[in-house]
């Protein structure tokens, strides 16, 4: 039940009792002393300021870390892609990157397989290479990586390969980075030249093996049929290696091992500077190409 004391539709603010009640309800408050809740609000204000300062420092550190991470990531990605484009990544990594980039339409050199041999499957025809001659014959593989120069005279039975940076791999066979002058490799044999070796000319013949280790000098006229002619690290001139079935080795520090055995062993060990006479055969012919 409601008792209406004012006229219907009239302004209630014209009622002095209502005005007085509202004035009393809105009376000003003495604020010289702390108000209820002021200490709590001030504590919250201080805590908020301290938290803001901590957040500011944290944000600054996070921003620095984020920038550093972004720079590092970009450097790694750029370097990885560049290395992949140059084909100098390790075999599996190169293969993986090549596959990934191929999916987005970018062609980079393939990686090497488990044997360290460069893959030739799906090799793009327009792969970057400075090779002047890639005269592939039947059963033979002659590849020249980007940056390699002068891989001439492909092997007939061997697998002439020249990695990036190798120079003067003529006549096929394997030539590691930095090696120079591996000429006239094996026909069906194996002629290898380690990093830093120079002038491994006229390597193994049919079934022969002619190796030149790191730092070796002139290994000319390696093993013939079934023969083996090795020149180890630091060896000097190993010319006219083993003939048929013979073995001619020159170890570290040896010099001038010429005219080696045809059917016997002939070794020039470390520190031996003398020329080694042939065992029982006439001096083999020198056939430099």
């Amino acid at each position: 039940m409601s008792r209406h004391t004012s006229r219907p539709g009239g302004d209630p603010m014209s009622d002095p009792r209502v005005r007085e009640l509202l004035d009393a309800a809105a009376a000003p408050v003495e604020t010289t002393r702390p108000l209820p809740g002021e200490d709590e609000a001030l504590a919250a204000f201080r805590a908020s300021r301290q938290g803001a300062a901590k957040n500011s420092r944290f944000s600054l550190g996070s921003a620095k870390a984020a920038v550093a991470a972004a720079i590092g990531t970009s450097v790694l990605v750029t370097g990885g892609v560049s290395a992949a484009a140059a084909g100098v990544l390790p075999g599996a990594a190169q293969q993986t990157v090549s596959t990934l980039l191929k999916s987005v339409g970018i062609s980079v050199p393939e990686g090497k397989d488990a044997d360290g041999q460069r893959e030739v499957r799906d090799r793009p025809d327009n792969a970057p290479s400075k090779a002047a001659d890639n005269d592939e014959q039947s059963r033979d593989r002659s590849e020249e990586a980007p940056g390699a120069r002068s891989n001439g005279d492909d092997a007939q039975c061997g697998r002439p390969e020249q990695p990036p940076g190798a120079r003067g791999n003529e006549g096929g066979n394997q030539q590691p980075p930095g090696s120079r002058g591996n000429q006239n490799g094996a026909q069906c044999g194996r002629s290898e030249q380690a990093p830093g070796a120079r002038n491994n000319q006229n390597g193994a013949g049919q079934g022969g093996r002619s190796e030149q280790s790191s730092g070796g000098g002139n290994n000319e006229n390696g093993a013939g049929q079934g023969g083996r002619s090795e020149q180890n690290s630091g060896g000097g001139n190993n010319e006219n290696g083993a003939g048929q079935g013979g073995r001619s080795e020159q170890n570290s520090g040896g010099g001038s091992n010429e005219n080696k055995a045809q059917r016997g062993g002939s070794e020039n060990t470390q520190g031996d500077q003398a020329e080694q006479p042939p065992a029982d055969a006439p001096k083999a012919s020198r056939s430099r190409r």
Partner: protein
Amino acid sequence: MDEFEQRLAAAQEGDELAFVYLFRSVQPTLLRYLATLGGPLAEDAAAETWVSVVRDLHRFRGDEAGWRSWIFTIGHSRLRDAQRRAGREPVWVDAGLEPALGPAADDVASTVEELLSTESALALIGRLPRDQAEAVLLRYVVGMDAPAAGRVLGKRPGAVRVAAHRGLRRLADLLAPPGVTDPSAPSVAEVT
């Protein structure tokens, strides 16, 4: 830049005195509003309001009216949350009146005549229906205009005006002596 804007900028930079000034400019009316509508929940709601205010103080942009409206909006929301948590309806302010049953008409009139204090006036406003009490408090106790009160309550300004008008008429009925229907009857002050 007026004094409020200077104080606000200083408070946003961490000046405690400036913050105290801003606090004292709002807290009394905020407490009255919350206490009238929320009773014992008012202090907790006010504390939560200021926690929210100091947290977002650096982001506030506006004048003094906007500042007041912003704080009361937060306070109104916090009180609603507190009442929802407490699972209770708005309660009366304990100002010597009987909250549960309410005073008899004669008692109300005598109370107004004898104890027309701020607390008793707020207690009478608290007897209004919720929407009317909110509108009367914001319009005539806090001093907001209808649009600002509407922003706090989430209503249109017209709805706020209607609610406030009905609340004032109801207060006039409560304040009238029994049997008196003349609005020109002597006021409480004249009687006392």
